[in-house]
C-alpha cells in the first residue's frame, strides 16, 4: 500500500482515575485540590487514539506520528515516560495549565497553532486524531474545534475502527445511539477522528523502549512553549462534589434463594 499519512494525535493528561478528586476555588477559578501533585495519566480516550495511530503508522511505512499535548511541563514528562514505553512518536509539548475547568476553545486554539507550525506538515496527508471524550473536561469539542481551525470538514466522532483502502480512502466506524456503529467511507485525508476505545489492546510497558524514546522526548520537553488560555467569557457560578453516600443495607446472611426472591420482586416492581 503506497498511502502514507501524517498523523497528529492531540492528547491531554488527566488525574489517575484511582485518585479522589475534590474541587476547590482559587483566584483563577475552580480547580482540583492538590491538582499539581495528583498522579496523572494520558487521557484514556486520547491514549486509544495514540495506540491506533501508532498501529496505523506502523502499517503504512513512511507515515509520521506526532503527539501534541498541552499541560504543565512537569506533568507532561511524568506521563510521557509511561507513554514512551508503549509507542514511539515525536512530541510537541505545550506548557499550559492542567485541569478540566479550562476553556476548550482556548485549548483548541493553542493546539491548532502548534499543529499549523509543525515543520514539514503536509495537510493533504493529515489525519488529526484524539479522544472523543476526556476524563477531565469531557466536553468532546476540542478536536472538532481544532479541525475547523485547520479547515478540515471530514470529521468522525466516537470512532472504534479505521480501515484504510488501497486508494487512500478509508472506512470508519463511529459509535451512534443504541450500541451501534455508523459506517462511513471517506475519500481520504485530511480528516479528524475522535476515538472511543478503538479495537486495540493497550501496548505493554517496556521501560527499556521508554528510556530510549525519552532521549528524544526530553529535548522537546525542555523547549515546550508556554501557552496562556483565555476564558472566552466562561464564568463558573458553582463547582461542587455531589453527595454520593447512600444508606446501604448489607445482607450478609441471606440464602441465595431468599436473595433471588427479593431480587425478582424488586425487578418486577415499578
Amino acid at each position, binding site marked *: 500500500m503506497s498511502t502514507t499519512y501524517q498523523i497528529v494525535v492531540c492528547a491531554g493528561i488527566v488525574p489517575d482515575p484511582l485518585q479522589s478528586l475534590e474541587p476547590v476555588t482559587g483566584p483563577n477559578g475552580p480547580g482540583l485540590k492538590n491538582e499539581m501533585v495528583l498522579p496523572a495519566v494520558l487521557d484514556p480516550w486520547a491514549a486509544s487514539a495514540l495506540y491506533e495511530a501508532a498501529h496505523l503508522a506502523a502499517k503504512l511505512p513512511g507515515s509520521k506520528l506526532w503527539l501534541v499535548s498541552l499541560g504543565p511541563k512537569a506533568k507532561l514528562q511524568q506521563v510521557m515516560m509511561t507513554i514512551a514505553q508503549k509507542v514511539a512518536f515525536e512530541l510537541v509539548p505545550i506548557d499550559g495549565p492542567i485541569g478540566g475547568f479550562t476553556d476548550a476553545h482556548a485549548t483548541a486554539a493553542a493546539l491548532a497553532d502548534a499543529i499549523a507550525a509543525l515543520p514539514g506538515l503536509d495537510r493533504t496527508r493529515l489525519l488529526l486524531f484524539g479522544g472523543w471524550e476526556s*476524563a477531565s473536561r469531557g466536553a468532546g469539542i476540542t478536536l472538532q474545534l481544532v479541525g475547523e481551525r485547520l479547515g478540515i470538514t471530514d470529521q468522525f466522532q466516537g470512532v472504534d475502527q479505521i480501515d484504510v483502502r488501497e486508494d487512500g480512502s478509508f472506512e470508519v466506524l463511529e*459509535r*451512534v445511539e443504541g450500541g451501534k456503529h455508523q459506517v462511513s467511507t471517506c475519500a481520504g485525508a485530511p480528516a479528524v477522528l475522535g476515538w472511543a476505545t478503538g479495537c486495540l489492546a493497550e501496548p505493554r510497558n517496556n521501560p527499556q523502549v521508554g528510556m530510549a524514546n525519552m532521549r528524544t522526548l526530553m529535548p522537546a520537553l525542555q523547549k515546550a512553549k508556554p501557552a496562556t488560555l483565555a476564558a472566552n467569557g466562561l*464564568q463558573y457560578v458553582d463547582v461542587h462534589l455531589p453527595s*454520593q453516600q447512600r444508606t446501604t443495607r448489607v445482607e450478609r446472611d441471606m440464602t441465595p434463594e431468599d436473595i433471588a426472591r427479593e431480587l425478582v420482586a424488586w425487578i418486577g416492581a415499578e
Partner: protein
Amino acid sequence: MKPILVLTHADESGSALTKASLEAVTAGKDLAQQLSAPLVIGVIAVHAVAAASALAATEARILSVTGEAFAQARYASDAAACEALCRAADSALVLAPGSSRFARIAAGVAHRLGGVIDTHITALGGSSTVEATRWFYRQRVEGVFHREASPWFLLLEPGTQTAFTGTPGTVQVESVAVELPAPRTYVTGVRAASQGQQTIRPDAKLLLVAGAGWTKKQPDGQVHATEAGQLILGFLGNSGASLGSSKSLVDQGGEGQPVLPFLTHMNQIGQTGSTPRHAKGLSTCCHGEEPHVVGWRFIGDRRAISLDPNCGWTRGKADVVYIADAFQVIAKVNELLSVNKP
C-alpha cells in the same frame, strides 16, 4: 432580544424528530418563556414539513434544511446545514440535543459563527442570565457556569429533559438554502456492535453489570466462564435488562484470559466507559471501585451481589448489597424469572 434557536434533526425515517430533539424543544420553550425571547426551531430532515408537524403547538418560527443530502449524518453536510440555520435565525443562544449527530458537528458550527459551545448540559437555570449545569471529571464533579460570549451553543444531554408532546398539526416551514461542498464522505450503513440484547439499551428499566469476578476462579478452584455466560444471558433474556460491564472484565479479552464472548468495550460502564440512565441497576461480581461507580451516576436504585463484605458497594454506593455468590443467586433468579417473566 435575539431569539432562542433550537436545532433538531429527524430520525432514520427522515420525517419524525428524534426524542432527544423534542427534549431540546422543551428546554427551548422554557428558556424562551423565562427570558421573554422569541423561539425559533431549526429542523434538519429529508421530509422537514412532516417532521416539523410535531412542533405545531410550540408556536415557534420553524426553519428547515431539507433534502436527500441530509438523510446521512455526516460532518460536512450537517455542519453546513446547522450553520445556515443559525445564520438565518440570528440567535445569541442555540440549544441542540447531544445526539451523536449533533455532537459531531456543533462545535465546528459554533466556531464558524464565532461563538462558543458547551456540551453535556444536564440542567439550565438562572433568572436574567442563563446558567448551565454539567459534569466534569466523568460525573465526579458538578459545575454550574455562565458564558458572556455569543452565540452560545448548549448541547443538552439526552434524557435530562421531558420530550415535547404538543398536538401535531400543520406548520409553516421556512426552507433555508444550503450550499454544500462536494461530498467526500458517504454513510454506507449502520452495524450492530454486538448481537441482540447484549448491548446497552437505553430503554431498558434495569441495567445488569457484570464484573471481572465472573471469570475468576470460583471456590472449587476452577474458572466457570461458560456457565457465567449462560447465567448472564439467561438473566438478560428473562428480565429484559440491558447489559453493562466493568472495564476489567472487558479488558480480559486483550490479556488472553477467559472471556465472555458477547462483551465488548461498547458494554463498558464507568470512568472510561458510558454513564447510562436506567431506573435500576444490579451489579454482579464487581468491586464497586470509584472509577467504575462513576458510571452509575444516573442509575436510580442500585443493588449489588458481591462475595466481598468490604467491597465499595457496601460503603454507601449501593442501596442494597447481598454478600453472596452471584453464580448461585443468578441461577435462582433465572429459575424464578423463567416461570414468571416480568
